């Protein structure tokens, strides 16, 4: 009888619960929509297919990194090295995709199929990520320190490999960042595909669930027989791979691999994840939330410029709006 009452209780709370869940889930989307409406009213050029693609293309590589860092944060970790890894991947890849007539030619006489630079970028990304993961899982280095180390080390190697930008790239390479399929810019497609795949991975595979389990309660995961170390190494490797992919996208977008590329992008990516509802203590967060977070950042960057807001004020306004968005998002959680 008592247990029946309990069951009823559960039932009763279920409805309220789902409204709450809805707000929890979609509060930040409402904020994004509000922004879109506001900017559309304030600026004519804002709500055009072209500008919307602009925004997504502009956040595409940051979005890739944000997806990676979301998974890392879900385990209760952090990745500060993404921007540097992006640069390292970019210079390595572009050095293998230069036109023979390039003024900054790194390897004269080199002509390799497009797959090679792509693979190299992904591999170096994955490798740096693996190193992060190994340091964190096996040597118990706090993720903040391990990836901060990677931030300086990868940047150093990028600069040693080439302290100058590597430009004049093959058209196939440039297609990654500049091309379009059926009118949809290729970077946008890449971002969407990665988002969908990681979403499925997180929700429907063991590895994905273990990522959440680690962040929710590492101890519980361990005593349930989850191989903690393997999951950690896997997550950081994946995040590194996505940083490498971001390096590909950004270098092909600007047609040049730059050792100084991507400074500070990790903070934007982390902000995107947190705005999108990822908890920095792990266990809570979704990929699509992160995408919404990245869009909010992209829309602000784009919209404030369209409105001719003074540049110094842009940073102030952007910082403030992000904080306010998070406040609103928190409030409704009460």
């Amino acid at each position, binding site marked *: 009888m008592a247990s029946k009452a309990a069951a009823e209780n559960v039932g009763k709370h279920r409805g309220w619960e789902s409204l709450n869940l809805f707000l929890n889930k979609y509060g930040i989307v409402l904020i994004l929509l509000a922004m879109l409406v506001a900017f559309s009213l304030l600026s004519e050029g804002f709500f055009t297919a072209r500008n919307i693609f602009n925004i997504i293309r502009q956040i595409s590589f940051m979005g890739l990194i944000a997806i990676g860092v979301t998974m890392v944060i879900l385990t209760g970790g952090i990745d500060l090295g993404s921007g540097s890894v992006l640069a390292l991947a970019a210079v390595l890849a572009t050095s293998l995709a230069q036109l023979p007539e390039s003024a900054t030619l790194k390897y004269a006489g080199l002509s390799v199929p497009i797959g090679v630079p792509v693979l190299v970028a992904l591999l170096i990304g994955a490798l740096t990520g693996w190193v992060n993961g190994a340091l964190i899982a096996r040597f118990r280095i706090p993720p903040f320190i391990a990836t901060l180390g990677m931030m300086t080390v990868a940047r150093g190697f990028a600069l040693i490999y080439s302290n100058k930008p590597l*430009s004049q790239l093959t058209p196939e390479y440039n297609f990654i960042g500049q091309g379009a399929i059926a009118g949809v810019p290729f970077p946008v497609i890449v971002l969407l595909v990665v988002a969908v795949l990681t979403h499925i991975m997180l929700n429907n595979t063991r590895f994905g669930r273990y990522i959440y389990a680690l962040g929710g309660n590492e101890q519980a995961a361990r005593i349930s027989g989850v191989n903690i170390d393997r999951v950690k190494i896997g997550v950081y490797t994946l995040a590194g791979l996505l940083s490498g992919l971001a390096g590909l996208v950004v270098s092909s977008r600007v047609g040049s691999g*730059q*050792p*100084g590329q*991507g*400074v500070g992008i990790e903070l934007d990516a982390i902000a995107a994840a947190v705005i999108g509802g990822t908890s920095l203590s792990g266990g809570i967060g979704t990929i699509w939330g992160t995408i919404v977070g990245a869009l909010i950042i992209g829309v602000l*960057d784009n919209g404030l410029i369209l409105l001719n807001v003074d*540049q110094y004020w842009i*940073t102030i306004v952007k910082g403030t709006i992000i904080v306010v968005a998070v406040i609103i998002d928190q409030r409704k959680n009460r």
Partner: protein
Amino acid sequence: VAPAAAPAAAPAAEEAAAEEAAPAEGGDAIRVGVTMLFDDRWLTSMREAMAAYGEAQEGVEVIFVDSKEDVAVQLGQVENFITQGVDAIVVVPANTDATDPMTQAALDAGIPLVYVNRKPANLPEGIAFVGSDSIDAGIFQMEWIAEALGGKGNVVILNGNLSQEAAQMRTEGVKQVAANFPDIALTKEQSGNWSREEGLAIMENWLASGDQIDAVASNNDEMAIGALAAIEAAGKLGEIIVGGVDASADALAEMDAGRLNVTVFQNAVGQGEGGIAAAIALARGEAIEQITWIPYELVTPENYKDYMK
């Protein structure tokens, strides 16, 4: 001497503006979008010159955005300008080797584009440039230092942010000149990230090593001033030649105090005004020279007073 090096385009544009008091094209104001690095001393002076020049022109509005010295950010900004429908775009390229997508976007949209200050590696027909050649700054600086050293001695280099164009090219200039002097050795080189504090710290550390240092070639004045503070603290003021770049107010004051030996003036006002003038002219469909050079000038204890306001 300095203001005399005003750009060719500027006066022409001024005249044009004077003649045509009414704003161009359907009575709308001309809007010029500028993307450039904000967090830089010299570029800020140039930006102020641009803003002032734009303000002085009737019916012209100049919009500035911070490129943060990031090529991807800058490309996004150019795309946003195009969406916004500006009449002309001015770009201080974050990197001269990665301008093609911006150039292409502007050409596709049919919006005039002017590169200012740093010359893109690839400057196709229809795209203008107003500026100077970064490598010259290093060359001028080092030529003076080499002569002052009598062609002999240990020179150290304070680099700007290693991943930035200006730092790479200025250092390149210094090295080119030094290569011509067999008795000059470039003994040390570190990045002080344009910062006075880091320049000071690096110089303190170099001096602590006890190695002989005869001259400092700094990529900018800020680090040079930092180095001077370290030299002073070590009691070696006057024993070490210090050269900077920019001829900033602080640097000229240091030179006035007899501490800084040489710096290189880059005409911020000339480049800024020239850039905006070129953009306005192109927006109005006027023809201009594709390239307008505004050269560096050497500033020494002999002529520095000409550069003080």
